[in-house]
């Protein structure tokens, strides 16, 4: 698939501090891309570079195959992590102002705002001041402002922080809907559930370096260790366990079940498959639970980060 955004060998330094050290990412067209990393890893700096808020010291950014140009602002929608609105300005007024700064005409902006306000059921807020709204309410307005000019690339930095579960879900659905309509989405977060749920691609940045990137399924394949989680019902559990331990690398497992099973994780050798394990187990016990252990993004995240610490 063609890449919408390519960042090549980006370096950024602030005095003696290197914020980004030779970071490259490729974001495929119409995908949801997760940019992961602990706090202070350099995610926000990279996003600012893509938004042309700061310039990289070295490296290039391409949008749709061409080097990034100041006019590309109109094709990017950015919801920063540090976001806010004018406290003493009315919601409608400042939404109009910010939309017009993105290049919309007044009439266009007004029409689209009315559409979005209706859709998110916030029509009544037009004449309210931000100081009268709660934080979550203000976030909704900011979301609308981010997507209003129908950008090709949407960048969300921690989009769900500050939302209650209902509204977080609402926003998540809107993001998926926007993707359906052809937008490409770049996420920056350290909330792994949302990554697991939404992202097809991820890149992991830690201490200014990119440690990992690619398709989530490929990364998981690369990180799985041929390990299986089993729940067994046997007459003589201690003997079975001993037999298994002689043959495989065995650990304990903990999952929820209604049976009082022997719960184990069993790691196979590289040349063995699940069938070998099943064959071994078939004659010795009843198999109530059998599942391959696939590392979660969270596991991969923690593993990679601690490895490189």
């Amino acid at each position: 698939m063609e890449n919408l955004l390519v960042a090549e060998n980006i370096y950024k330094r602030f005095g003696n501090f290197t914020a980004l050290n030779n970071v490259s990412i490729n974001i495929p067209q119409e995908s949801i891309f997760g940019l992961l990393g602990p706090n202070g890893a350099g995610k926000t700096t990279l996003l600012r570079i893509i938004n042309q808020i700061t310039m990289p010291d070295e490296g290039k950014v391409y949008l749709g195959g061409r080097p990034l140009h100041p006019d590309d602002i109109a094709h990017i929608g950015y919801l920063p992590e540090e976001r806010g609105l004018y406290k003493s300005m009315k919601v409608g007024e400042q939404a109009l102002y910010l939309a017009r700064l993105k290049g919309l005409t007044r009439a266009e902006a007004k029409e689209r705002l009315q559409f979005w306000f209706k859709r998110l059921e916030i029509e009544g807020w037009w004449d309210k001041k931000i100081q009268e709204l709660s934080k979550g309410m203000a976030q909704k307005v900011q979301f609308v402002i981010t997507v209003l000019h129908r950008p090709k690339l949407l960048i969300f930095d921690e989009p769900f922080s500050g939302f209650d579960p209902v509204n977080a879900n609402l926003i998540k659905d809107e993001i998926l809907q926007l993707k359906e309509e052809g937008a490409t989405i770049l996420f920056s977060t350290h909330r792994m559930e949302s990554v697991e749920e939404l992202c097809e691609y991820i890149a992991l940045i830690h201490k200014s370096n990119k440690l990992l990137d690619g398709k989530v399924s490929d990364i998981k394949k690369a990180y799985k260790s041929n390990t299986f989680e089993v729940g067994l019902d046997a007459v003589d559990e201690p003997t079975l366990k001993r037999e298994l331990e002689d043959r495989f690398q065995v650990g304990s497992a903990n999952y929820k079940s209604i049976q009082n099973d022997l719960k184990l994780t069993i790691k196979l050798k590289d040349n063995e498959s699940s069938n070998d394990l099943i064959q071994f187990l078939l004659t010795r016990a009843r198999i109530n639970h059998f599942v391959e252990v696939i590392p979660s993004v969270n596991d991969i995240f923690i593993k990679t980060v601690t490895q490189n610490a």
Partner: protein
Amino acid sequence: MRNLRLIINREYLARVKNKTFIVMTFLSPLIFVGMILLIAYLSMLNSTEQKIIGIYDESGMFATEFKDGEQVQYLDFSKKPLEKARQEVLDNEYYGLIHISDIEPGLGKPADIEFFGKDTPGFGTIENIEKTISDKLTREQLIAKGIDVSEIDKARADVNVQIQNFSGERSSKMSNYIKMFFGGAAGYLLMMFIIIYGNMVMRSVIEEKTNRIIEIIVSSVKPFQLLLGKILGTSLAGMTQFSVWVILGTVLLWGISSFLGIDPYAAQSPASAAIESAARPEINQLVIDILKLPYASLLVFFVIYFLGGYFLYSAIYAAIGAAVDSETDTQQFMFPIILPLILGIYVGFFSVVENPHGTVSTIFSIIPFTSPIVMLMRIPFGVPWWEITASIIVLIATNFGILWLSAKIYRVGILMYGKKPSYKELYKWLKY
């Protein structure tokens, strides 16, 4: 350009729609006029109060010399014993009692002249008493020497220097004071404007930073555009306020002059001015002098120097706003800003008044950080064109330099949170 216009528009409306701004704009001229009227009223009250002073003159020479005036009335107690006179003055709560002892033959004047009073008498009162007695004594001594006093009176000549510039425009000593007053007022007003509007810019930068809206905005526009738009929008608000004040001021001036029955245009022609001055010389001359000030150029240069000075200082204010996280952090940077402004005011009040075209005044009216104030104070006295041009050019050039520097600090500062700013830190930002 389109975005710059949008930003200017928003900034302007944000300032102008502010309630405090509206109240200050319309209320300050009224408060100002009200204060003047109050002072005038109070001093009138003061002067209508009549003092009664008793005289106990042993020599019998001076009692008749004290003439009753609007503010003082003299009562002669010389016929009564001194103790009784004192008691009477005390009982009636008169202002005081003057006791003049008899003339000492050898000295040729009274040995003692005393004033008894409840409170210490005012300077004017004492001076008047001394002058009356001394005049009388002088006359008596001249007469004693056989000199005809009436000849001296006749020979006394009043001199009044007529000040006039080379193009033949007349002015009076009074008009110098008026120029000083208006120049000083304009300079002072300018300083206040710079501080008030510079602070507005700073607060608006801090607001955007603490609101965290800044990052949303700079993802749409360049920080420099935002900075420029903010400064320009706020300056328009300043011009709006100033225009309202000028219009209100003109209306009030017209009101006062027509209330006093002086036609400001008629006053321009010497003949009618002469007639008018004959009727009410002092007030009239004052009004004429005020009306004859070079308003047009004062106004034009006020606008030019306000814009120049304001851009210069507000660029610095904006950089400071960007560097800090809250208004309380700005203290350490305020002093270096206020210092040149105050220096300008001091130079204006001490040096310009003394010698409007002296070296000190000239130099400070070229230095861009003080020139708006000092030059404005000099302008009523007439400044050569080349000096004004030079000072404006220097001011504009400095503006570009400062704007460039502060834009660099601004660009870094608005996205920097939680860093305690120091001068060293700011210097580092210049190089990012």
